[in-house]
């Protein structure tokens, strides 16, 4: 029994050691250019690639094209409305749709005509390309990426995809608390508003806030961490003490105090989320800087008389990009959860703007009779955060396998 276990664990260790360096099995010479495949791809993007054996890429192209084309097909009315009298949101949606369709078409043709004919380079690939290859092999991470791209796409196309206006109430007496049906995929809330529509528009709020807040907080954290790690001495000590202090106040409590002091609104929310929670990235960037600043290339640039900030920004910072990207991706999920929590408490995005957190809160009064009001927005949050976490884990494994837990 025990020996079996040992054999197993050794086998696992060996397998894990062998796995990362699996050889590339595809041909390295590239294929001949096939005009019929190009024609096929011009007709239906992706089919050509699939016909010449590039199934995975072809499948992706075909899938994206199918989604975009279906969207166009079901939103012909919206398109004509946009052309006659469309707002900014409508035009944004139309442009996104057009770019997607044309882009997929071009990609489909180029994949057959150019990419497939080129030999695969094996030597002299950059670190980023190796990471990209490792990332593409990770199916879960690719699924996360796909969901994330789809979510951002949906937020842009919300005016076309949503069957109603997010604040449209209709006949409120007849229309409220409708269970999921063909007219209302996910039911209606207490004001008769369509839940599915509001989830689509809520995605805008969550993803925009998540993205902007994480950009602010990671930039801040990187700068602070870079200063601490580069200058060391009293700067480092002061920053470390300040971070210890911030970490002792729970982030949600700090956010609550900030928001309570002012009137809750979306700009305050973004600012507060962006200005808190940068401690993690500061710590990691500091650690990177501490080791990188002793390297020869930094000593060389110092010897050349470059200024401190030039060394920090141009020479050391690019080398810390990988962990920063990972932290930002994993942080977005966290920020989305915090935003949802604050909106749930009524201290984030204010009604009537649709936001997932406040939609969950709306359903609390009628949990027994109308379970769908709270349930679906919550599922949307779970799906989004799962996607970002999958993506973040995949990026971490691809960019820096040492960080794996």
């Amino acid at each position, binding site marked *: *029994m*025990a020996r079996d*276990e*040992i054999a197993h*664990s*050794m086998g*696992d*260790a060996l397998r894990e050691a062998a796995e990362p360096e699996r050889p590339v099995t595809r041909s390295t010479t590239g294929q001949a250019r096939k005009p019929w495949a190009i024609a096929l791809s011009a007709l239906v993007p992706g089919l050509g690639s699939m016909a010449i054996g590039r199934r995975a890429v072809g499948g992706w192209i075909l899938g994206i094209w199918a989604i975009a084309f279906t969207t166009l097909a079901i939103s012909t009315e919206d398109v004509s409305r946009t052309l006659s009298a469309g707002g900014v949101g409508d035009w944004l949606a139309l442009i996104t749709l057009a770019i997607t369709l044309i882009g997929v078409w071009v990609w489909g043709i180029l994949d057959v005509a150019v990419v497939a004919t080129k030999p695969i380079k094996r030597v002299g690939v950059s670190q980023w390309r190796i990471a990209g290859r490792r990332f593409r092999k990770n199916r879960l991470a690719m699924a996360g990426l796909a969901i994330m791209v789809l979510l951002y796409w949906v937020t842009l196309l919300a005016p076309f995809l949503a069957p109603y206006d997010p604040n449209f109430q209709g006949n409120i007496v007849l229309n409220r608390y409708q269970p999921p049906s063909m007219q209302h995929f996910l039911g209606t809330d207490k004001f008769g508003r369509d839940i599915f529509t509001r989830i689509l528009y809520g995605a805008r709020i969550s993803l925009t806030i998540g993205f902007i807040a994480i950009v602010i907080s990671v930039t801040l954290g990187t700068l602070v961490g870079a200063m601490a790690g580069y200058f060391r001495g009293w700067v480092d000590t002061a920053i470390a*003490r*300040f971070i*210890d*202090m*911030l*970490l*002792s*106040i*729970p*982030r*949600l*409590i*700090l956010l*609550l*105090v*900030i*928001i*309570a*002091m*002012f009137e809750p609104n979306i700009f305050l929310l973004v600012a507060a989320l962006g200005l808190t929670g940068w401690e993690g990235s500061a710590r990691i960037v500091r650690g990177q800087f501490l080791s990188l600043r002793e390297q020869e290339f930094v000593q060389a640039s110092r010897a050349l008389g470059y200024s401190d900030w030039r060394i920090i920004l141009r020479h050391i910072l690019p080398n810390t990009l990988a962990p920063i990207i990972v932290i930002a991706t994993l942080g977005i*999920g966290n920020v989305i*959860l915090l935003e*949802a*929590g604050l909106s*749930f*408490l*009524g*201290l984030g995005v204010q009604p009537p703007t649709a936001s997932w*957190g406040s939609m*969950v809160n709306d*359903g*609390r009064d009628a*949990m*027994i009779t109308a*379970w769908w009001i*709270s*349930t679906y927005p*919550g599922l949307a*949050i*779970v799906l989004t*955060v*799962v996607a970002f*976490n*999958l993506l973040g884990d995949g990026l971490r494994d691809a960019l820096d396998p040492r960080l*794996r*837990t």
Partner: protein
Amino acid sequence: MTGYILKRTLQSIPILLGASTLIFFLMHAAPGDPTSIYLRPDIDPAVIEQMRKNLGLDQPVHVQYVKWLSSFARGDFGYSFSQKRPIIDIIKDTLPNTILLSGIALVIIFSLGVLIGTIQAVRQYSWIDNLATVLAFFFYSMPSFWFGLMLILLLSYKFQWLPASQMTSVNFEFISVGKQWVDRLMHLIMPAAALGIGSAASVARYMRSGMLEQIRQDYVRTARAKGLSERVVIFKHAMRNALIPVITLLGLSLPFLVGGAVLIETIFAWPGMGRLIIQAIFQRDYPVVLASAFVLSITVIIGNLLADILYSVVDPRVRVEESET
């Protein structure tokens, strides 16, 4: 040992001071002051001025800060506008409830996380490992407030197994002592589970990888080779070492736990600090908001201190390294 504890305790004093300073200056950065709620056309500006003088708001910021700090140090948090009683009394009522909730959540996080992580590591790549990995990922990404609502929906409304809100039933005072305990426990299960499940998932993840690392070590092989039973090898030898990083994780998860308590207490109508702070925000009762934020920060700092001390008990290497540097 005592030297280490003393040193760590002293180290947390400046942190505490800093946190209180931050909270104080946040309050001062906000527009208006406590008298602004009385600003109405029918009130004489001279009265407002007198009020400011009485409250000490006309003094320079640093004087106000020192006064504020010294009264906080004495446990005098001021007076609640909305509840019309000293804040210290309100906190005495609510803090134990939050600590009870977080404590039980911590127990759930630790026991569930360690158990699942260990099972996963021992049965690596089995269906149970894969299932637990997927579930852990979902629970980790789930908003706790939504999970709490779903628990209420299923366990309280649909199956009627557990009570949906409050700490005790309506007839709590009229039932026997034994039943009172059961009643309290029934009210605790759902909020504690909703609060702890996300952190439990991340503990399980760390435990799995830590355990996998330990199982491959030479000392585990030695233990097996000398004929110890598998249970002793896993639970006595490997687990002890795998637990060390988990203790750090517990200390780090405290701020999330306290923050999460705000949401969970609101959903389950749990009379704790979290609900207090939310109610105070909506009633614009700023002294209560600030005092609660301060007290919760102290709770986190003390919790971290305890985690560090526990860490040094489990892993004596920490103490040695600390004293050498």
